[in-house]
């Protein structure tokens, strides 16, 4: 389970709870800074604002975990975990699970979009909403895409990371 009190990543989980995907952005040079860090690696700026992004991206790479070595995921295997490069800046890669899709249908750089689900570890749902991704073209029977609230890209969440 994520530690929701860990300040540097709190904005990510707070946004997910609102069913939004947010990434810190440097207020001085507009660069997305991921993972969260106190200074912008581009301009050295120290003011970051959690910024809602479109939730669209491409599948940068993934692993199909046939046998989980990480105990909380033992019963979940096989599962797909990987990296999504954000549409706003593909240098930003979000670690996630790819859901609602047969792993055999995945391909590199395919368009994916965010979908919010309750995080479940070791069979327990913890009341924490997490951003997962699914292929844009997903039409697997039984996995009808659910309507998602449309975030407003570029809008800041009004929260300032305190680092």
């Amino acid at each position, binding site marked *: *389970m*994520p*530690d929701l009190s*860990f300040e*540097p*990543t709190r904005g*990510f*989980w707070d946004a997910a709870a609102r069913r939004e995907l947010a990434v810190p952005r440097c207020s001085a040079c507009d660069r997305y800074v*991921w*993972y*969260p860090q106190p200074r912008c*690696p581009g301009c050295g700026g120290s003011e970051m604002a959690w910024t809602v992004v479109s939730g669209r991206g491409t599948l*940068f*790479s*993934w*692993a*199909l*975990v*046939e*046998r*989980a*070595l*990480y105990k*909380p*995921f033992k019963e*979940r295997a096989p*599962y797909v*975990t*990987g*990296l999504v*490069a954000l549409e706003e800046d*593909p*240098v930003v*890669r979000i*670690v*996630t*699970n790819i859901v609602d899709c047969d792993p055999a249908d995945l391909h*590199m*750089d395919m368009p994916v979009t965010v979908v919010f689900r309750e*995080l479940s*570890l070791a069979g327990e749902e913890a009341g*924490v909403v*997490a951003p*997962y991704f699914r292929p844009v073209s997903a039409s697997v029977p039984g996995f009808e895409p659910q309507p998602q609230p449309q975030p407003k890209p570029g809008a800041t969440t009004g929260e300032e990371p305190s680092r």
Partner: protein
Amino acid sequence: MASRAADWGWRGELPDASGQVAIAGVGESRHTPASGRTSVEIAIDAVGAALDDAGLSPRDVDGLMWSGGLPGQLDEPAFRQHFGARGFDGPLWTSSQGGGMVWAGTAPALAAQALAAGDARVIVNVFSIAWATQRQAGEGSPGDAHSSEHFKANLELPFGWFPQPVYFATIARRHMHEYGTTSAQLGSIAVSCRRHANLHEGAVMRDKPLTLADYLDRPMLVDPLRMEDCCLISDGGAAYVMTSPEHARDLRKPPVHVAGVAEGHSGSGVFWSQQGDFTATPQVFSAPAAFEMAGITPADVDVLTLYDPFTIVALMQIEDMGFCKKGEGGAFVEGTRLHHDGGGLPYNTHGGLLSHAYVLGISHVVEVVRQLRGEACAQVPDAQIGVYGGYTGHMASTLVLRRGTR
């Protein structure tokens, strides 16, 4: 491509060690499944063997290096406690920036400074691990350092992007996409290592052959990696003894000289997911500097050992060190090119982390020394120049060794 920046890492600053250090002794403990022993007990065996090999006694030691970042190492208190009972009571120059992993490659640079300053005359670098025993007891694993890291715990573990086989399966799949690398090519690395381990009396996998057909028949663990792409978990340790080239001339074994040392860093640290060039290693920043210090090119290297937690890590380092062009590593490692007797680039001739033992790189240095002395199990004929490539993800190191003269 957009994600690839030329500035994703940098070369570290290390003192020039070229020609200033000799490795005069090497030794290993036994490498075993769970032994029930502590890593300190294992390290003591390795140090004893290395000193014997050099014709020295514990009383001759006045310098000690270990890996400060890992618990259970033979550090100064442990060394004094054990060897104090055997007559050691002298001063001891120490550094916790030694031991295994990248530091198995960079320890000679710090030792060169200590030798030149007169702080020490005989320096032992030692590393050991008892992860097989710990795993059996449920006390710790190679993943612990990652799962306890806050950003990983909050941004990676909730999605099961953990532990290391998952990181490197993700990297391997991207490498396959960008360069056409195949499973069979990764398998070729695993098979070459196993072949060497089958020839090595101390290797954990000595009695277990592996053909490419066997490899391809094995199930995926974390697709696209199989268990055979991943390092062993074992108990074991190794040590090597460093001194000046002048002193080494008078010792028991033919000396091996340090010709070049360098290290490289990744700007994204231990966060593989964000590394600027996702399918590369910081060897890009390390190897060229070490080769330049040694006055060699990759073509001059007679034997290569690489820190190989996964086949893909070896493949990327082979490319990044310049043994072939970036992206051509897959074709490069096919067939017999990596075999000790294949006439190509003899690689991990002891079996590496995949098939010799998971002793985190220090046995890789021991193996290079044995090759240059002509006493290896899978001996490369007339090996003159050997290289160790170290890797810990956020760093890489390159150590160039040359057969010395008396």
